[in-house]
């Protein structure tokens, strides 16, 4: 099945994970990430791992990478904010590729008012933590965009964050 014939944005994102050789996706869900993980669970090649907290998800993905696979982390931006320590002390310190898909709660597309404070600080936090990132473009080739993010993480041996909105997954 070609990327463009896939029905939903979630399917196109997961197709990108599969095409890039991701073997494990560790996640703490929110409404949007939960929908994405439902698609991940249908994958024949990606092991879905439910973590209780986001720092764990990062370490689990790193463990998969160190063991010869490719890990991805699927979390909300609030969860990313929890991850400063493990990003510095594991991902950066040991130079481990780690691709993130992060729901961009509180941006202008989010209809839920109480996420707004998180949206306001998301990109400034990414910049302050020196995390390379991109915002998903659902009008373009989402599958390829996921692949580019994963390759960026591999090439830099570090993190790369793809910010998504709920509408990107529709």
């Amino acid at each position, binding site marked *: 099945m070609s990327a463009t014939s896939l029905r939903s944005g979630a399917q196109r994102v997961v197709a990108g994970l599969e095409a890039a050789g991701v073997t494990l996706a560790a996640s703490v869900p929110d409404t949007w990430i939960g929908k994405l993980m439902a698609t991940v669970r249908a994958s024949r090649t990606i092991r879905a791992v439910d973590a209780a907290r986001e720092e*764990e998800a990062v*370490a*689990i993905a790193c463990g*998969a990478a160190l063991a*010869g696979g490719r890990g991805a982390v699927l979390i909300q931006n609030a969860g990313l904010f929890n991850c400063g*320590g493990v990003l510095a002390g594991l991902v950066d310190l040991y130079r481990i590729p780690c691709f993130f898909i992060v729901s961009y709660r509180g941006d202008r597309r989010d209809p839920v008012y109480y996420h707004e404070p998180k949206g306001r600080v998301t990109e400034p936090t990414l910049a302050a933590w020196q995390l390379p990132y991109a915002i998903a473009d659902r009008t373009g080739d989402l599958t390829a965009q996921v692949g580019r993010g994963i390759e960026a993480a591999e090439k830099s041996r570090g993190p790369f964050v793809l910010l998504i909105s709920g509408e990107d997954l529709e």
Partner: protein
Amino acid sequence: MTARKLLLEALVGMLGPDDVLVSCLGANSRYLPHLDVRAPAFALCDSMGAAIPLALGMALQRPDRHVVALEGDGSLLMCPNVLATVAAAHPSNLTALLWVNGHYESSGGQELPAAPVDWTSLAKGFGIAHVERVGDLPGLCAAFPRARAAKAPALLVVDVAFDPNEPIPPYSERPDEIRARFRIA
């Protein structure tokens, strides 16, 4: 109570090239370069609480290897929720050893919050399939093979002596050296 070095020496003596060892920061990671470790070893020097989830990721990626995680009670007290994550993932090839000495040993020997945490009950409550408390060296030598044979997530809660004057060697390997050397065949 038994000194950590003796317990650690006994543990690594039970590991072979087909095992994988992940160490939390502090004394474990500082001792490892001075021990005869036949298993690939990944030693953390930061990131309290990362050893068990890191080992879980390895165990899921490589079900053909038995992965052993070393964690301290101070680290696990920060994120005991990882036990639920491990129970849910239910790897058949992961054993964690929890060193219990009631202190943040690597950060100056401060005491943990004075709560009588029952780690074995906690782990069982989270759904860890195989949990044993270990009080001495013979106990560890008997319990580790049982944990390995459990074919289910295992946690050994190991009472270890706290000695503020223990001559723990300093870190002798840089993270890039640890990362470069770590390979699971």
